[in-house]
Protein backbone atom coordinates (compact mmCIF):
# COMPACT_ATOMS: atom_id res chain seq x y z
CA UNK A 1 0.00 0.00 0.00
CA UNK A 2 1.10 3.47 -0.74
CA UNK A 3 2.09 5.75 2.11
CA UNK A 4 -0.63 8.36 2.71
CA UNK A 5 1.80 11.28 2.46
CA UNK A 6 3.00 10.43 -1.06
CA UNK A 7 0.82 13.07 -2.82
CA UNK A 8 2.41 15.86 -0.79
CA UNK A 9 5.90 14.45 -1.26
CA UNK A 10 5.55 14.53 -5.06
CA UNK A 11 5.64 18.34 -4.81
CA UNK A 12 7.65 18.77 -1.61
CA UNK A 13 10.64 16.68 -2.70
CA UNK A 14 11.58 18.74 -5.79
CA UNK A 15 10.81 21.94 -3.86
CA UNK A 16 13.23 21.06 -1.07
CA UNK A 17 15.95 19.68 -3.34
CA UNK A 18 15.56 22.63 -5.70
CA UNK A 19 16.05 25.14 -2.91
CA UNK A 20 18.96 23.20 -1.42
CA UNK A 21 20.54 22.95 -4.87
CA UNK A 22 20.42 26.70 -5.37
CA UNK A 23 21.61 27.31 -1.82
CA UNK A 24 24.37 24.82 -1.16
CA UNK A 25 25.48 22.94 -4.26
CA UNK A 26 27.71 23.99 -7.13
CA UNK A 27 28.33 22.90 -10.72
CA UNK A 28 27.96 19.22 -11.46
CA UNK A 29 26.69 18.41 -7.97
CA UNK A 30 23.72 20.64 -8.64
CA UNK A 31 22.93 18.58 -11.73
CA UNK A 32 23.35 15.34 -9.77
CA UNK A 33 20.88 16.58 -7.16
CA UNK A 34 18.38 17.53 -9.86
CA UNK A 35 18.71 14.07 -11.43
CA UNK A 36 18.30 12.23 -8.14
CA UNK A 37 15.32 14.35 -7.24
CA UNK A 38 13.66 13.68 -10.60
CA UNK A 39 14.14 9.92 -10.11
CA UNK A 40 12.73 10.10 -6.60
CA UNK A 41 9.74 12.00 -7.95
CA UNK A 42 9.24 9.35 -10.63
CA UNK A 43 9.25 6.60 -8.01
CA UNK A 44 6.73 8.52 -5.90
CA UNK A 45 4.48 9.21 -8.89
CA UNK A 46 4.51 5.58 -10.03
CA UNK A 47 3.63 4.53 -6.50
CA UNK A 48 0.81 7.06 -6.52
CA UNK A 49 -0.47 5.90 -9.91
CA UNK A 50 -0.64 2.32 -8.63
CA UNK A 51 -2.43 3.51 -5.51
CA UNK A 52 -5.00 5.31 -7.67
CA UNK A 53 -5.72 2.10 -9.58
CA UNK A 54 -6.58 0.29 -6.39
CA UNK A 55 -8.19 3.15 -4.51
CA UNK A 56 -11.95 3.10 -4.00
CA UNK A 57 -13.52 5.24 -6.72
CA UNK A 58 -10.13 5.65 -8.36
CA UNK A 59 -9.34 8.77 -6.31
CA UNK A 60 -6.55 9.46 -3.84
CA UNK A 61 -7.14 12.59 -1.80
CA UNK A 62 -4.74 14.42 0.46
CA UNK A 63 -5.73 17.23 2.80
CA UNK A 64 -2.89 19.74 3.06
CA UNK A 65 -2.37 20.96 6.60
CA UNK A 66 -4.93 18.48 7.84
CA UNK A 67 -7.79 20.79 6.81
CA UNK A 68 -10.45 18.63 5.25
CA UNK A 69 -11.66 19.58 1.77
CA UNK A 70 -13.54 21.53 0.50
CA UNK A 71 -12.37 24.08 3.10
CA UNK A 72 -8.69 23.22 2.96
CA UNK A 73 -6.49 22.76 -0.08
CA UNK A 74 -6.82 19.26 -1.41
CA UNK A 75 -4.41 17.29 -3.53
CA UNK A 76 -6.68 15.03 -5.52
CA UNK A 77 -5.35 12.36 -7.83
CA UNK A 78 -7.74 10.53 -10.11
CA UNK A 79 -6.97 8.51 -13.23
CA UNK A 80 -6.71 11.59 -15.43
CA UNK A 81 -4.07 13.43 -13.48
CA UNK A 82 -2.33 10.21 -12.48
CA UNK A 83 -1.75 9.67 -16.20
CA UNK A 84 -0.45 13.22 -16.73
CA UNK A 85 1.68 13.04 -13.57
CA UNK A 86 3.35 9.90 -14.89
CA UNK A 87 4.08 11.66 -18.20
CA UNK A 88 5.57 14.71 -16.46
CA UNK A 89 7.61 12.62 -14.03
CA UNK A 90 8.94 10.26 -16.71
CA UNK A 91 9.99 13.15 -18.90
CA UNK A 92 11.67 14.88 -15.96
CA UNK A 93 13.52 11.73 -14.98
CA UNK A 94 14.82 11.09 -18.50
CA UNK A 95 15.47 14.63 -19.72
CA UNK A 96 17.30 15.82 -16.58
CA UNK A 97 20.20 13.34 -16.88
CA UNK A 98 20.44 14.02 -20.61
CA UNK A 99 20.51 17.76 -20.11
CA UNK A 100 23.85 18.16 -18.34
CA UNK A 101 26.21 18.70 -21.29
CA UNK A 102 23.82 20.91 -23.18
CA UNK A 103 23.23 23.07 -20.14
CA UNK A 104 26.91 23.30 -19.27
CA UNK A 105 27.52 24.54 -22.81
CA UNK A 106 24.78 27.17 -22.53
CA UNK A 107 25.07 28.47 -18.96
CA UNK A 108 28.18 29.97 -17.27
CA UNK A 109 29.69 27.67 -14.63
CA UNK A 110 29.05 30.04 -11.73
CA UNK A 111 25.32 30.12 -12.49
CA UNK A 112 24.78 26.38 -12.91
CA UNK A 113 23.46 25.83 -9.38
CA UNK A 114 20.84 28.53 -9.93
CA UNK A 115 19.88 26.97 -13.26
CA UNK A 116 19.36 23.53 -11.74
CA UNK A 117 17.49 25.03 -8.81
CA UNK A 118 15.10 26.80 -11.17
CA UNK A 119 14.85 23.63 -13.28
CA UNK A 120 13.54 21.74 -10.26
CA UNK A 121 11.20 24.55 -9.25
CA UNK A 122 9.77 24.39 -12.77
CA UNK A 123 8.94 20.75 -12.11
CA UNK A 124 7.40 21.72 -8.78
CA UNK A 125 5.07 23.99 -10.72
CA UNK A 126 4.18 21.43 -13.39
CA UNK A 127 3.64 18.57 -10.94
CA UNK A 128 1.72 20.87 -8.62
CA UNK A 129 -0.70 22.06 -11.32
CA UNK A 130 -1.41 18.47 -12.17
CA UNK A 131 -1.86 17.10 -8.68
CA UNK A 132 -3.85 19.84 -6.98
CA UNK A 133 -7.59 19.76 -6.57
CA UNK A 134 -7.90 23.46 -5.82
CA UNK A 135 -8.62 25.96 -8.59
CA UNK A 136 -6.67 28.86 -7.11
CA UNK A 137 -3.75 26.52 -6.46
CA UNK A 138 -3.78 25.77 -10.19
CA UNK A 139 -3.28 29.47 -10.90
CA UNK A 140 -0.45 29.93 -8.39
CA UNK A 141 1.41 26.81 -9.49
CA UNK A 142 0.84 27.69 -13.14
CA UNK A 143 2.62 30.96 -12.45
CA UNK A 144 5.43 29.20 -10.57
CA UNK A 145 5.83 26.88 -13.53
CA UNK A 146 5.66 29.78 -16.00
CA UNK A 147 7.99 32.19 -14.21
CA UNK A 148 10.65 29.50 -13.95
CA UNK A 149 10.05 28.66 -17.61
CA UNK A 150 10.66 32.25 -18.71
CA UNK A 151 13.99 32.23 -16.89
CA UNK A 152 14.96 28.87 -18.35
CA UNK A 153 14.17 30.08 -21.88
CA UNK A 154 16.13 33.30 -21.29
CA UNK A 155 19.18 31.15 -20.41
CA UNK A 156 19.62 30.69 -24.15
CA UNK A 157 20.91 34.28 -24.23
CA UNK A 158 24.57 33.26 -24.00
CA UNK A 159 24.34 31.52 -27.35
CA UNK A 160 21.63 33.55 -29.04
CA UNK A 161 20.33 36.89 -27.77
CA UNK A 162 16.98 36.28 -29.43
CA UNK A 163 16.22 34.03 -26.46
CA UNK A 164 15.64 37.23 -24.48
CA UNK A 165 13.01 38.70 -26.78
CA UNK A 166 11.39 35.27 -27.12
CA UNK A 167 11.27 34.90 -23.33
CA UNK A 168 9.78 38.38 -22.98
CA UNK A 169 7.07 37.67 -25.52
CA UNK A 170 6.35 34.37 -23.77
CA UNK A 171 6.13 36.26 -20.47
CA UNK A 172 3.62 38.80 -21.77
CA UNK A 173 1.40 36.15 -23.39
CA UNK A 174 1.76 33.75 -20.47
CA UNK A 175 0.89 36.41 -17.90
CA UNK A 176 -2.14 37.56 -19.86
CA UNK A 177 -3.26 33.93 -20.14
CA UNK A 178 -2.80 33.21 -16.45
CA UNK A 179 -4.60 36.44 -15.56
CA UNK A 180 -7.62 35.46 -17.67
CA UNK A 181 -7.63 32.17 -15.80
CA UNK A 182 -7.49 34.09 -12.51
CA UNK A 183 -10.51 36.24 -13.42
CA UNK A 184 -12.41 33.16 -14.55
CA UNK A 185 -11.67 31.39 -11.28
CA UNK A 186 -12.88 34.53 -9.48
CA UNK A 187 -16.21 34.33 -11.33
CA UNK A 188 -16.51 30.66 -10.43
CA UNK A 189 -15.72 31.48 -6.81
CA UNK A 190 -18.49 34.05 -6.86
CA UNK A 191 -20.99 31.61 -8.33
CA UNK A 192 -20.14 28.55 -6.29
CA UNK A 193 -18.46 29.97 -3.18
CA UNK A 194 -15.77 27.33 -3.29
CA UNK A 195 -12.34 26.82 -4.78
CA UNK A 196 -12.21 23.05 -4.53
CA UNK A 197 -12.58 21.79 -8.09
CA UNK A 198 -14.66 18.70 -7.28
CA UNK A 199 -16.95 20.78 -5.05
CA UNK A 200 -17.16 23.45 -7.76
CA UNK A 201 -18.26 20.87 -10.30
CA UNK A 202 -20.93 19.52 -7.98
CA UNK A 203 -22.34 22.99 -7.28
CA UNK A 204 -22.34 23.98 -10.94
CA UNK A 205 -24.57 20.98 -11.59
CA UNK A 206 -27.26 22.26 -9.22
CA UNK A 207 -30.09 23.57 -11.38
CA UNK A 208 -30.66 26.73 -9.32
CA UNK A 209 -27.02 27.75 -9.73
CA UNK A 210 -27.26 27.39 -13.48
CA UNK A 211 -30.52 29.36 -13.55
CA UNK A 212 -29.43 32.21 -11.30
CA UNK A 213 -25.96 32.79 -12.69
CA UNK A 214 -25.94 31.32 -16.17
CA UNK A 215 -24.38 34.43 -17.62
CA UNK A 216 -21.62 34.57 -15.01
CA UNK A 217 -20.84 30.92 -15.64
CA UNK A 218 -20.61 31.53 -19.37
CA UNK A 219 -18.31 34.51 -18.78
CA UNK A 220 -16.14 32.40 -16.50
CA UNK A 221 -16.08 29.71 -19.15
CA UNK A 222 -14.91 32.08 -21.89
CA UNK A 223 -12.25 33.68 -19.71
CA UNK A 224 -10.86 30.33 -18.58
CA UNK A 225 -10.96 28.94 -22.11
CA UNK A 226 -9.02 31.95 -23.40
CA UNK A 227 -6.45 31.67 -20.63
CA UNK A 228 -5.96 27.94 -21.09
CA UNK A 229 -5.59 28.29 -24.88
CA UNK A 230 -2.78 30.81 -24.33
CA UNK A 231 -1.07 28.45 -21.90
CA UNK A 232 -1.31 25.38 -24.10
CA UNK A 233 -0.35 27.38 -27.22
CA UNK A 234 -3.39 26.40 -29.25
CA UNK A 235 -3.79 28.32 -32.51
CA UNK A 236 -4.35 31.35 -32.64
CA UNK A 237 -2.63 31.79 -29.26
CA UNK A 238 0.48 29.88 -30.28
CA UNK A 239 2.67 32.83 -31.28
CA UNK A 240 4.95 32.64 -28.23
CA UNK A 241 5.86 29.01 -28.77
CA UNK A 242 8.11 28.84 -31.86
CA UNK A 243 10.43 31.60 -30.64
CA UNK A 244 10.63 30.25 -27.12
CA UNK A 245 11.43 26.69 -28.18
CA UNK A 246 13.78 27.71 -30.98
CA UNK A 247 16.00 29.99 -28.89
CA UNK A 248 15.97 28.25 -25.50
CA UNK A 249 18.86 25.86 -24.82
CA UNK A 250 17.96 22.51 -26.41
CA UNK A 251 17.56 20.62 -23.09
CA UNK A 252 15.15 23.32 -21.90
CA UNK A 253 13.16 22.92 -25.11
CA UNK A 254 13.13 19.16 -24.51
CA UNK A 255 11.69 19.63 -21.02
CA UNK A 256 9.17 22.29 -22.00
CA UNK A 257 7.97 20.67 -25.22
CA UNK A 258 7.37 17.41 -23.41
CA UNK A 259 5.79 18.74 -20.21
CA UNK A 260 4.72 22.41 -20.12
CA UNK A 261 2.21 22.43 -22.99
CA UNK A 262 1.04 18.96 -21.95
CA UNK A 263 0.12 20.29 -18.55
CA UNK A 264 -1.72 23.08 -20.38
CA UNK A 265 -3.74 20.45 -22.23
CA UNK A 266 -4.44 18.74 -18.91
CA UNK A 267 -5.74 21.99 -17.41
CA UNK A 268 -8.02 22.39 -20.43
CA UNK A 269 -9.41 18.87 -20.00
CA UNK A 270 -9.82 19.39 -16.26
CA UNK A 271 -11.78 22.61 -16.64
CA UNK A 272 -13.86 21.58 -19.66
CA UNK A 273 -14.78 18.09 -18.48
CA UNK A 274 -14.01 18.06 -14.77
CA UNK A 275 -15.45 21.39 -13.63
CA UNK A 276 -17.84 22.79 -16.21
CA UNK A 277 -18.78 19.28 -17.26
CA UNK A 278 -19.22 17.81 -20.69
CA UNK A 279 -22.85 18.86 -20.94
CA UNK A 280 -22.23 22.57 -20.34
CA UNK A 281 -19.00 22.74 -22.33
CA UNK A 282 -20.06 20.82 -25.38
CA UNK A 283 -23.83 20.64 -25.53
CA UNK A 284 -24.92 24.05 -24.31
CA UNK A 285 -21.90 25.99 -25.58
CA UNK A 286 -20.35 25.63 -29.04
CA UNK A 287 -16.93 24.66 -27.66
CA UNK A 288 -16.64 21.53 -29.79
CA UNK A 289 -16.81 23.15 -33.25
CA UNK A 290 -14.61 26.07 -32.11
CA UNK A 291 -11.96 23.73 -30.76
CA UNK A 292 -12.09 21.57 -33.88
CA UNK A 293 -11.61 24.58 -36.18
CA UNK A 294 -8.71 25.97 -34.13
CA UNK A 295 -7.17 22.50 -33.98
CA UNK A 296 -7.54 21.95 -37.73
CA UNK A 297 -5.88 25.28 -38.52
CA UNK A 298 -3.13 24.53 -35.99
CA UNK A 299 -2.47 21.14 -37.57
CA UNK A 300 -2.40 22.34 -41.17
CA UNK A 301 -0.65 25.70 -40.68
CA UNK A 302 1.78 24.35 -38.08
CA UNK A 303 2.83 21.46 -40.31
CA UNK A 304 3.13 23.70 -43.38
CA UNK A 305 5.30 26.20 -41.55
CA UNK A 306 7.39 23.36 -40.12
CA UNK A 307 8.10 22.26 -43.70
CA UNK A 308 9.53 25.68 -44.46
CA UNK A 309 12.02 25.83 -41.57
CA UNK A 310 15.71 25.15 -42.01
CA UNK A 311 16.64 25.36 -38.35
CA UNK A 312 15.83 22.04 -36.70
CA UNK A 313 14.74 23.53 -33.37
CA UNK A 314 12.36 25.91 -35.13
CA UNK A 315 11.07 23.06 -37.28
CA UNK A 316 10.33 21.01 -34.17
CA UNK A 317 8.70 24.02 -32.52
CA UNK A 318 6.27 24.51 -35.41
CA UNK A 319 5.59 20.81 -35.43
CA UNK A 320 4.70 21.18 -31.73
CA UNK A 321 2.07 23.77 -32.68
CA UNK A 322 0.59 21.17 -35.03
CA UNK A 323 0.78 18.35 -32.49
CA UNK A 324 -1.03 20.43 -29.86
CA UNK A 325 -3.69 20.76 -32.54
CA UNK A 326 -4.15 16.97 -32.52
CA UNK A 327 -4.63 17.00 -28.75
CA UNK A 328 -7.15 19.85 -28.99
CA UNK A 329 -8.89 17.86 -31.70
CA UNK A 330 -9.31 14.92 -29.37
CA UNK A 331 -10.55 17.19 -26.58
CA UNK A 332 -12.99 18.90 -28.96
CA UNK A 333 -14.54 15.63 -30.17
CA UNK A 334 -16.01 15.25 -26.67
CA UNK A 335 -16.27 11.48 -26.90
CA UNK A 336 -14.54 8.75 -24.98
CA UNK A 337 -12.44 7.63 -27.94
CA UNK A 338 -11.51 11.21 -28.79
CA UNK A 339 -10.40 11.98 -25.26
CA UNK A 340 -8.45 8.74 -25.02
CA UNK A 341 -6.80 9.67 -28.32
CA UNK A 342 -5.92 13.12 -26.96
CA UNK A 343 -4.38 11.60 -23.82
CA UNK A 344 -2.42 8.99 -25.79
CA UNK A 345 -1.25 11.67 -28.18
CA UNK A 346 -0.16 13.73 -25.20
CA UNK A 347 1.93 10.81 -23.96
CA UNK A 348 3.39 9.88 -27.33
CA UNK A 349 4.18 13.47 -28.27
CA UNK A 350 5.92 14.03 -24.93
CA UNK A 351 8.13 10.99 -25.53
CA UNK A 352 8.83 11.79 -29.18
CA UNK A 353 9.43 15.54 -28.82
CA UNK A 354 11.59 14.97 -25.75
CA UNK A 355 13.72 12.49 -27.70
CA UNK A 356 13.90 14.77 -30.75
CA UNK A 357 14.94 17.86 -28.81
CA UNK A 358 17.54 15.79 -26.93
CA UNK A 359 18.93 14.53 -30.24
CA UNK A 360 18.99 18.06 -31.62
CA UNK A 361 20.75 19.08 -28.41
CA UNK A 362 23.37 16.43 -29.14
CA UNK A 363 23.81 17.86 -32.65
CA UNK A 364 24.09 21.41 -31.32
CA UNK A 365 26.62 20.22 -28.76
CA UNK A 366 28.75 18.58 -31.45
CA UNK A 367 28.22 20.89 -34.42
CA UNK A 368 27.36 24.23 -32.83
CA UNK A 369 24.06 24.38 -34.71
CA UNK A 370 21.41 22.06 -36.10
CA UNK A 371 20.26 23.05 -39.56
CA UNK A 372 18.75 20.78 -42.16
CA UNK A 373 21.60 21.72 -44.55
CA UNK A 374 24.19 20.35 -42.12
CA UNK A 375 22.68 16.91 -41.72
CA UNK A 376 24.26 15.32 -44.78
CA UNK A 377 25.85 11.96 -44.06
CA UNK A 378 25.39 12.24 -40.30
CA UNK A 379 23.70 8.86 -40.32
CA UNK A 380 27.11 7.26 -40.75
CA UNK A 381 29.05 9.51 -38.41
CA UNK A 382 26.57 9.77 -35.56
CA UNK A 383 24.40 6.69 -36.07
CA UNK A 384 22.74 6.70 -32.64
CA UNK A 385 21.77 10.36 -32.70
CA UNK A 386 20.58 10.02 -36.27
CA UNK A 387 18.63 6.93 -35.29
CA UNK A 388 16.83 8.79 -32.50
CA UNK A 389 16.07 11.64 -34.90
CA UNK A 390 14.71 9.24 -37.51
CA UNK A 391 12.52 7.29 -35.10
CA UNK A 392 11.22 10.50 -33.59
CA UNK A 393 10.35 11.97 -36.97
CA UNK A 394 8.55 8.77 -37.95
CA UNK A 395 6.66 9.01 -34.68
CA UNK A 396 5.56 12.57 -35.52
CA UNK A 397 4.25 11.32 -38.85
CA UNK A 398 2.44 8.45 -37.15
CA UNK A 399 3.90 5.59 -39.20
CA UNK A 400 2.39 2.23 -38.18
CA UNK A 401 4.52 0.70 -35.45
CA UNK A 402 5.13 4.00 -33.72
CA UNK A 403 3.07 5.41 -30.89
CA UNK A 404 1.93 8.24 -33.13
CA UNK A 405 0.00 5.73 -35.19
CA UNK A 406 -1.90 4.44 -32.17
CA UNK A 407 -3.04 7.87 -31.00
CA UNK A 408 -3.94 9.08 -34.49
CA UNK A 409 -5.88 5.86 -35.02
CA UNK A 410 -7.95 6.68 -31.94
CA UNK A 411 -8.51 10.23 -33.19
CA UNK A 412 -9.59 9.17 -36.67
CA UNK A 413 -11.88 6.46 -35.29
CA UNK A 414 -13.46 8.93 -32.89
CA UNK A 415 -14.04 11.44 -35.68
CA UNK A 416 -15.61 8.84 -37.98
CA UNK A 417 -17.77 7.56 -35.12
CA UNK A 418 -19.44 10.96 -35.09
CA UNK A 419 -19.51 11.20 -38.87
CA UNK A 420 -17.01 14.05 -38.87
CA UNK A 421 -15.08 12.89 -41.89
CA UNK A 422 -13.47 16.34 -42.54
CA UNK A 423 -11.71 15.93 -39.18
CA UNK A 424 -10.34 12.59 -40.29
CA UNK A 425 -9.16 14.20 -43.53
CA UNK A 426 -7.39 16.93 -41.55
CA UNK A 427 -5.56 14.28 -39.51
CA UNK A 428 -4.49 12.49 -42.68
CA UNK A 429 -3.39 15.65 -44.50
CA UNK A 430 -1.53 16.76 -41.35
CA UNK A 431 0.27 13.42 -41.30
CA UNK A 432 1.24 13.81 -44.96
CA UNK A 433 2.63 17.27 -44.26
CA UNK A 434 4.49 15.80 -41.29
CA UNK A 435 5.92 13.21 -43.65
CA UNK A 436 7.18 16.07 -45.83
CA UNK A 437 9.12 17.76 -43.02
CA UNK A 438 10.23 14.45 -41.60
CA UNK A 439 11.74 13.49 -44.96
CA UNK A 440 13.54 16.82 -45.01
CA UNK A 441 15.40 15.61 -41.93
CA UNK A 442 15.62 11.87 -42.54
CA UNK A 443 16.65 11.96 -46.19
CA UNK A 444 19.96 13.88 -45.84
CA UNK A 445 20.82 11.90 -42.70
CA UNK A 446 21.01 8.60 -44.53
CA UNK A 447 21.02 9.30 -48.27
CA UNK A 448 23.65 12.03 -48.65
CA UNK A 449 26.94 11.11 -50.34
CA UNK A 450 29.76 9.89 -48.10
CA UNK A 451 32.15 12.78 -48.62
CA UNK A 452 30.21 15.81 -47.53
CA UNK A 453 32.31 18.66 -46.15
CA UNK A 454 31.81 19.02 -42.38
CA UNK A 455 29.43 21.85 -41.50
CA UNK A 456 30.77 25.24 -40.57
CA UNK A 457 31.38 25.68 -36.87
CA UNK A 458 32.26 22.04 -36.39
CA UNK A 459 36.04 22.43 -36.43
CA UNK A 460 36.61 20.42 -33.27
CA UNK A 461 34.07 17.83 -34.18
CA UNK A 462 36.16 15.16 -35.86
CA UNK A 463 33.10 13.26 -37.08
CA UNK A 464 32.53 11.51 -33.77
CA UNK A 465 29.29 10.37 -32.20
CA UNK A 466 28.00 12.34 -29.21
CA UNK A 467 28.96 11.07 -25.74
CA UNK A 468 26.79 8.02 -25.46
CA UNK A 469 25.67 7.76 -21.87
CA UNK A 470 25.02 11.44 -21.25
CA UNK A 471 23.58 12.64 -24.55
CA UNK A 472 22.41 9.67 -26.60
CA UNK A 473 21.06 7.24 -23.99
CA UNK A 474 18.17 9.40 -22.70
CA UNK A 475 16.96 9.95 -26.24
CA UNK A 476 17.19 6.23 -26.91
CA UNK A 477 15.21 5.44 -23.78
CA UNK A 478 12.43 7.77 -24.90
CA UNK A 479 12.47 6.33 -28.43
CA UNK A 480 12.27 2.81 -27.01
CA UNK A 481 9.31 3.79 -24.82
CA UNK A 482 7.58 5.32 -27.82
CA UNK A 483 8.26 2.25 -29.97
CA UNK A 484 7.02 -0.01 -27.20
CA UNK A 485 3.79 1.97 -27.08
CA UNK A 486 3.50 1.70 -30.86
CA UNK A 487 4.09 -2.05 -30.94
CA UNK A 488 1.28 -2.69 -28.52
CA UNK A 489 3.36 -3.10 -25.38
CA UNK A 490 1.89 0.02 -23.78
CA UNK A 491 -1.06 -1.81 -22.24
CA UNK A 492 -0.97 -0.13 -18.82
CA UNK A 493 -0.60 3.37 -20.29
CA UNK A 494 -3.36 2.73 -22.80
CA UNK A 495 -5.57 1.25 -20.12
CA UNK A 496 -5.03 4.24 -17.85
CA UNK A 497 -5.81 6.68 -20.68
CA UNK A 498 -9.00 4.81 -21.56
CA UNK A 499 -10.07 4.60 -17.93
CA UNK A 500 -9.41 8.33 -17.48
CA UNK A 501 -11.46 9.11 -20.59
CA UNK A 502 -14.24 6.85 -19.33
CA UNK A 503 -14.31 8.73 -16.00
CA UNK A 504 -14.76 12.03 -17.81
CA UNK A 505 -17.15 10.91 -20.54
CA UNK A 506 -19.43 8.32 -18.98
CA UNK A 507 -20.92 5.82 -21.40
CA UNK A 508 -24.43 6.60 -22.61
CA UNK A 509 -27.11 5.63 -20.17
CA UNK A 510 -24.73 6.24 -17.27
CA UNK A 511 -25.35 8.76 -14.51
Amino acid sequence: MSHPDVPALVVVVPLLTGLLTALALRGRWAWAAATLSSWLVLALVLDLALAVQHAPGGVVSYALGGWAPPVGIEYRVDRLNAFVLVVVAVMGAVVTPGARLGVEAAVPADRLHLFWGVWQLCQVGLLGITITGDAFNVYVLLEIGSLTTYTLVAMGKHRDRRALTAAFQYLVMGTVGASFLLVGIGYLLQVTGTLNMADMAARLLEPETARASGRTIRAAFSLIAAGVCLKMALFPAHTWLPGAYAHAPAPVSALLASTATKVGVYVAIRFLYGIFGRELSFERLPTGPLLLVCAAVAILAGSLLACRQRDLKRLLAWSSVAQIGYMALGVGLASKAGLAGALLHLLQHALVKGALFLAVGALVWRLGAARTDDLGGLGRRMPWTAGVLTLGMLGLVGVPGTAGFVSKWYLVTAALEQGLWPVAVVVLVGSLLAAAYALKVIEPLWAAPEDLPPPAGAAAWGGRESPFSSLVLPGLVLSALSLGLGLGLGGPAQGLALAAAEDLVPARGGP
Partner: protein
Amino acid sequence: MEWLRLVPYWVYVALMMIGLYGAIARGNLVKKVIGLGLFQTGIFIFYISLAVVDGGTAPIAREGWEGPYTSPLPHVLILTAIVVSVSTMAVALALVIEVQRAYGTVEADELAALDAEGTEA
Protein backbone atom coordinates in the same frame (compact mmCIF):
# COMPACT_ATOMS: atom_id res chain seq x y z
CA MET B 1 -27.67 53.96 -5.14
CA GLU B 2 -27.57 50.52 -6.66
CA TRP B 3 -25.21 51.72 -9.38
CA LEU B 4 -22.64 52.73 -6.76
CA ARG B 5 -22.14 49.10 -5.79
CA LEU B 6 -21.17 48.31 -9.35
CA VAL B 7 -18.52 51.02 -9.59
CA PRO B 8 -15.65 48.73 -8.53
CA TYR B 9 -16.59 46.30 -11.28
CA TRP B 10 -16.57 49.05 -13.91
CA VAL B 11 -13.21 50.20 -12.59
CA TYR B 12 -11.91 46.65 -12.76
CA VAL B 13 -12.99 46.15 -16.35
CA ALA B 14 -11.64 49.56 -17.40
CA LEU B 15 -8.26 48.96 -15.73
CA MET B 16 -8.01 45.52 -17.23
CA MET B 17 -8.74 46.76 -20.74
CA ILE B 18 -6.32 49.68 -20.44
CA GLY B 19 -3.67 47.30 -19.20
CA LEU B 20 -4.31 44.75 -21.92
CA TYR B 21 -4.11 47.48 -24.54
CA GLY B 22 -0.81 48.65 -23.08
CA ALA B 23 0.64 45.16 -22.90
CA ILE B 24 -0.24 44.37 -26.50
CA ALA B 25 -0.26 47.63 -28.45
CA ARG B 26 2.66 49.49 -26.90
CA GLY B 27 6.01 49.16 -28.59
CA ASN B 28 8.21 49.90 -25.60
CA LEU B 29 8.91 46.83 -23.47
CA VAL B 30 8.79 48.83 -20.23
CA LYS B 31 5.36 50.15 -21.18
CA LYS B 32 4.27 46.60 -21.90
CA VAL B 33 5.32 45.68 -18.36
CA ILE B 34 3.36 48.65 -16.98
CA GLY B 35 0.37 47.45 -19.00
CA LEU B 36 0.66 43.99 -17.49
CA GLY B 37 0.81 45.56 -14.04
CA LEU B 38 -2.39 47.53 -14.65
CA PHE B 39 -4.07 44.44 -16.06
CA GLN B 40 -3.33 42.46 -12.92
CA THR B 41 -4.22 45.33 -10.60
CA GLY B 42 -7.65 45.42 -12.21
CA ILE B 43 -8.09 41.77 -11.29
CA PHE B 44 -7.10 42.46 -7.69
CA ILE B 45 -9.82 45.11 -7.47
CA PHE B 46 -12.31 42.59 -8.83
CA TYR B 47 -11.45 40.01 -6.17
CA ILE B 48 -11.52 42.59 -3.37
CA SER B 49 -14.95 43.75 -4.55
CA LEU B 50 -16.14 40.15 -4.35
CA ALA B 51 -15.32 40.05 -0.66
CA VAL B 52 -17.70 42.86 0.35
CA VAL B 53 -20.48 41.87 2.73
CA ASP B 54 -23.18 44.42 3.59
CA GLY B 55 -22.28 46.05 6.90
CA GLY B 56 -19.25 43.82 7.24
CA THR B 57 -16.13 44.95 9.06
CA ALA B 58 -12.51 43.91 8.63
CA PRO B 59 -12.28 40.20 9.44
CA ILE B 60 -10.50 40.62 12.77
CA ALA B 61 -12.05 39.01 15.82
CA ARG B 62 -12.79 41.44 18.63
CA GLU B 63 -14.91 41.42 21.71
CA GLY B 64 -18.51 42.55 21.54
CA TRP B 65 -18.83 42.09 17.77
CA GLU B 66 -20.50 39.05 16.36
CA GLY B 67 -20.23 40.01 12.73
CA PRO B 68 -20.86 40.30 9.90
CA TYR B 69 -17.30 40.33 8.58
CA THR B 70 -16.18 40.81 5.01
CA SER B 71 -15.01 37.56 3.49
CA PRO B 72 -11.29 37.14 4.20
CA LEU B 73 -10.81 34.47 1.51
CA PRO B 74 -10.53 36.78 -1.54
CA HIS B 75 -8.14 38.98 0.42
CA VAL B 76 -5.87 36.05 1.11
CA LEU B 77 -6.07 34.94 -2.51
CA ILE B 78 -5.20 38.39 -3.74
CA LEU B 79 -2.31 38.67 -1.32
CA THR B 80 -0.92 35.60 -3.04
CA ALA B 81 -1.75 36.96 -6.47
CA ILE B 82 0.01 40.24 -5.63
CA VAL B 83 3.13 38.29 -4.73
CA VAL B 84 2.85 36.39 -8.01
CA SER B 85 2.39 39.69 -9.84
CA VAL B 86 5.42 41.25 -8.14
CA SER B 87 7.51 38.22 -9.10
CA THR B 88 6.29 38.49 -12.68
CA MET B 89 7.23 42.18 -12.72
CA ALA B 90 10.66 41.32 -11.35
CA VAL B 91 11.30 38.67 -14.01
CA ALA B 92 9.93 40.97 -16.71
CA LEU B 93 12.11 43.91 -15.67
CA ALA B 94 15.17 41.68 -15.39
CA LEU B 95 14.49 40.50 -18.93
CA VAL B 96 14.09 44.10 -20.12
CA ILE B 97 17.45 45.00 -18.58
CA GLU B 98 19.07 42.02 -20.29
CA VAL B 99 17.44 42.98 -23.59
CA GLN B 100 18.79 46.52 -23.22
CA ARG B 101 22.28 45.12 -22.58
CA ALA B 102 22.17 42.72 -25.52
CA TYR B 103 20.44 44.90 -28.12
CA GLY B 104 20.88 48.47 -26.90
CA THR B 105 17.15 49.18 -27.29
CA VAL B 106 13.83 48.22 -25.71
CA GLU B 107 11.57 49.23 -28.60
CA ALA B 108 9.73 46.21 -29.98
CA ASP B 109 9.94 47.27 -33.65
CA GLU B 110 13.68 47.92 -33.48
CA LEU B 111 14.15 44.58 -31.72
CA ALA B 112 12.16 42.84 -34.44
CA ALA B 113 14.34 44.50 -37.10
CA LEU B 114 17.52 43.41 -35.29
CA ASP B 115 16.18 39.86 -34.90
CA ALA B 116 15.29 39.71 -38.60
CA GLU B 117 18.88 40.67 -39.49
CA GLY B 118 20.10 37.80 -37.34
CA THR B 119 17.91 35.35 -39.26
CA GLU B 120 19.15 36.53 -42.66
CA ALA B 121 22.82 36.22 -41.71
